């Protein structure tokens, strides 16, 4: 597995694990506690003010001591209401559950007092689970009171937590059984002509809200006993929402709340806080669970993406930044009445930084280990891993080994560039686009400038003569096509440089360990001297050919009108033969060093041409030559000069060994061998045949023979020439004796198809 792949897998794993962790954390009380601490810290900065229109009438310790032990007779409350009524409060809530009829007949008195009040509210309480297997018990005020009161509202506190943080404005004790608005919600509606609060209307029944607590004791409070026994100024009560509830410690209606400011908070004050929040729309809505989940997981993945790009140091900084951002966002949201618990998200972030750091280090360490031992195993360098035994830990050792590996590579690069610059020929290494990445100074010398960043084609533009320019560019262009096949030899191209020297350009591909084509190495070899030698040699051959022919031509020309016919003809024939031998010799020398360049030739016509050339000789010996084309106009790819001379040698040979008055039959045939077609030229004479001894080496070069009777006389070079030409044309020559006398010489050549001709 490559380092990249491994890191990608580790990255995904870390992301997955952290996400799962966050999901788990969201449902874990420990994180709840943590969130609560954070909430308390944040919320303590912006606590709301107490609503001045709320008056708490406290059943405090002093009231108990002055009025008497709890429970009080019901007429006491009736008296209170008598006192309150003239002062005209907006509403009155009696947070005392009177669920059982009294024995002293005070109930009637209280009922009348309540009925007298224009706006009075009573609590009811649900106890879940209920007794005797019921889902819940309802603790209601006694029937008479309930009917006398304006309305009854629930006063259940949310007890998920030991600390009272949340409240439900609507209680649905058994899912769907009925909706009970909170007592405070009902009071709130007295000021809105019955319209429900936003918090109530916008949420499902049973949703909990976080209660923003004002500073403890900041609500206007009056002691019950003071209200009953003294004359309270009516202004204190007018248009207030009066909440009557127990505050005495012994009555048990006090609860722990956040930032309790040194004590428990009485239920009445909690309700006052709720009413205050309702009026100012100050309830805090916790984010829904799906959104919380998304908001908790999202930062983890964002941070993981950041890890991919950042160095470990910046990754740490960005982790810290993320923590701050989450806390700040949480605080800002709280300011807008929304609570996002940051605990799970923070936990995720705290986890992934060290986790990623560990896994990344492990992956890199494993990778270095493997690569270093690979280098070690490949034997290119001295052993690496064992070099620094004193380094303190494994990563330290690996780093030291890596350091020495890099040193080796530096040395190697130095070595390569030294070798390069000492090469006798210009050489350049190019990437796949042809840009030069490494070259020796001979290239710069050649172009007379810097090669940095140049393309190999630009080098060609400078060096190569216009005549060869296109061909060289074609050769360079072929680099990519050839790269697929690493076995390709890539060949070479020969060109003339602009200042007159001749070069051969070669290329070999650079293939990486992983079989990828990385670029190419171009070599330029100066072959001017060689080219010069070739030219000279060709000139020598030309001269040789001409100078050997010229005197023979002169001999033949000067024979005109001299000597008798027979002697003249003999001299002329031998002069021509000398000439032909000289030509054969020169041609063979030339063929040995030139590339085959054939033309599309109609074989039968070429044979006829040759036969017609030899007609005077045949005429002289009274031999008839018949040429028959049975190939249906077969073409061959041939060098006409060489092939003509070869066939000429064969026919000449045949004429020489034919008895006077006999025939020579020449047939051109097509032979199909699979998809390939061959053409044959069969020259059949009626001579004495070829001796069996000479037959096997008939076509070998310079085979000489003194014996007059033997067939090969005088044909030593001639037949060797034929074979050279046949092979050069991709064909063959053979000879055989026919049963009824005479010899067949069979020249075989590959047929040129119509397509290859063009």
């Amino acid at each position, binding site marked *: 597995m490559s380092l990249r792949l491994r890191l990608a897998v580790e990255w995904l794993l870390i992301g997955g694990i952290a996400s799962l962790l966050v999901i788990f954390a969201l449902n874990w009380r420990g994180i709840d506690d943590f969130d609560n601490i954070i909430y308390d810290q944040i919320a303590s900065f912006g606590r709301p003010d107490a609503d001045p229109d709320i008056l708490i009438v406290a059943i405090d310790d002093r009231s108990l001591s002055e009025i008497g032990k709890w429970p009080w007779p019901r007429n006491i409350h009736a008296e209170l209401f008598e006192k309150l009524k003239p002062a005209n409060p907006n509403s009155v809530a009696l947070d005392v559950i009177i669920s059982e009829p009294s024995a002293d007949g005070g109930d009637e008195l209280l009922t009348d007092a309540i009925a007298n009040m224009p706006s009075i509210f009573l609590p009811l309480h649900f106890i879940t689970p209920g007794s005797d297997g019921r889902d819940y018990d309802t603790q209601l005020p006694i029937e008479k009171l309930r009917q006398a009161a304006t309305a009854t509202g629930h006063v259940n506190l949310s007890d998920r937590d030991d600390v009272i943080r949340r409240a439900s404005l609507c209680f649905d004790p058994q899912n769907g059984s009925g909706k009970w608005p909170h007592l405070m919600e009902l009071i709130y509606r007295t000021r809105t002509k019955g319209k429900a609060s936003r918090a109530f209307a916008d949420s499902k029944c049973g949703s909990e809200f976080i209660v923003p607590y004002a500073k403890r004791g900041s609500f206007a409070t009056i002691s019950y006993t003071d209200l009953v026994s003294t004359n309270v100024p009516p202004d204190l009560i007018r248009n207030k929402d009066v909440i009557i509830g127990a505050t005495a410690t012994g009555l048990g209606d006090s609860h722990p709340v956040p930032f309790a400011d040194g004590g428990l908070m009485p239920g009445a004050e909690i309700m006052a806080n709720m009413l205050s929040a309702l009026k100012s729309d100050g309830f805090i809505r916790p984010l829904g669970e799906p959104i919380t989940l998304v908001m908790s997981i999202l930062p983890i993945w964002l941070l993981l993406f950041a890890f991919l790009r950042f160095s470990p140091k910046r990754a740490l900084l960005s982790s810290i930044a993320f923590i701050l951002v989450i806390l700040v966002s949480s605080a800002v949201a709280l300011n807008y009445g929304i609570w996002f618990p940051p605990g799970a998200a923070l936990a995720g972030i705290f986890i992934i930084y060290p986790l990623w750091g560990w896994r990344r280090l492990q992956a890199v360490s494993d990778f270095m280990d493997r690569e270093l031992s690979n280098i070690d195993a490949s034997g290119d360098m001295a052993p690496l891993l064992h070099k620094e035994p004193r380094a303190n830990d494994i990563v330290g050792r690996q780093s030291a080994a890596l350091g020495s590996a890099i040193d080796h590579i530096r040395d190697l690069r130095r070595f390569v560039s030294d070798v390069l610059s000492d090469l006798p020929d210009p050489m350049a290494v190019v990437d796949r686009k042809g840009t030069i990445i490494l070259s020796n100074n001979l290239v710069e010398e050649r172009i007379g400038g810097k090669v940095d960043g140049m393309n190999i084609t630009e080098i060609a533009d400078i060096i190569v003569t216009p005549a060869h320019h296109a061909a060289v560019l074609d050769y360079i262009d072929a680099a990519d096509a050839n790269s697929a096949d690493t076995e390709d030899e890539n060949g070479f191209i020969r060109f003339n440089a602009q200042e007159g020297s001749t070069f051969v350009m070669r290329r070999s591909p650079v293939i990486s360990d992983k079989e990828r084509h990385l670029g190419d190495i171009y070599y330029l070899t100066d072959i001017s001297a060689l080219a010069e030698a070739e030219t000279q040699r060709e000139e020598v051959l030309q001269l040789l050919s001409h100078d050997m022919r010229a005197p023979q031509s002169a001999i033949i020309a*000067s024979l005109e*009108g001299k000597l008798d016919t027979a002697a003249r003809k003999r001299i002329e024939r031998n002069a*021509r033969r000398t000439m032909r031998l000289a030509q054969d010799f020169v041609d063979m020398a030339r063929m040995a060093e030139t590339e085959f360049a054939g033309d599309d030739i109609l074989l039968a016509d070429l044979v006829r041409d040759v036969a*017609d050339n030899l*007609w005077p000789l045949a005429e002289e010996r009274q031999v008839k030559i018949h040429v028959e084309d049975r190939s249906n*106009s077969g073409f061959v790819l041939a060098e006409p000069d060489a092939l003509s001379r070869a066939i000429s040698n064969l026919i000449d040979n045949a004429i020489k060994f034919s008895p006077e008055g006999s025939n020579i039959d020449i047939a051109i045939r097509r032979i199909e061998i699979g998809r390939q077609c061959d053409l044959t030229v069969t020259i059949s004479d009626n001579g004495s045949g070829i001796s069996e001894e000479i037959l096997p080496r008939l076509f070998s070069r310079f085979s000489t023979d003194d014996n007059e009777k033997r067939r090969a006389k005088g044909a030593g070079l001639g037949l060797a020439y034929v074979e050279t030409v046949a092979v050069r044309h991709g064909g063959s020559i053979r000879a055989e004796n026919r049963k009824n006398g005479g010899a067949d010489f069979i020249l075989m050549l590959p047929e040129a198809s119509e397509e290859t001709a063009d």
Partner: protein
Amino acid sequence: MALQGSEVLGFMRVAIADDEIDVTQFLAKIVEEQGHVAATFSDGQMLTQALVRDTFDLVILDWMMPGKDGLATIKWMDETLTEAPPVIMMTNRTAKQDISDALNAGADDYITKPEDRNVIAARINAILRRTSSSGAFETKATYGKYELDRIDQTVTMDGKTVSLTAKEFELADLFFRNRDRTLSRNYIMETIWRTTVSLATRTLDMHISRVRSKLDLTPDNGFRIFTVFGYGYRLETIDKG
């Protein structure tokens, strides 16, 4: 056939340049036997000097000469003379490339040394015949065994009609009219097919091959087709002397 040249043409002035004295003498003799006048020069320089002040109907040039070689002389003639005489290049060079180079450089014909005297005579006459041709059109013409009827487009050989297609007849006619002259492939294609481009190269080879077989153009019948590889063809008359 030997005296055909003077009978038809009257006498002509032929310049011969070669550095081999044997060759110039041999050629001069042939020219004079044809009833023409020969002037000989031993190098290109002398020839060009003579060409400035004298007029010739034909120049026979050796390729490899001291002073000025054959190709340079042709170039000089093209550039200097207002009406350059036709040139026959004569040389020991036999390579296909050399022959087509010479013909493409402007030589009217090309003779490889050593060549038979009758062949040389025929070639000289062919050139001279062309330059002084009156262009008379004969409906029937006889060339040795062959008789061409240009109205019926038939060829008879020894009195027997040879069946030819229209193109084959035109080709045969072209060759007979221009016997002993080297015709380039382009010239033949333009004359017979009126094109040089759209024709597959093998078409011409195959037509010539068919004409050659059908008319049995062999030395035995007094004619032969000579292929100048890389350049064209020539119908040669054979003197069976």
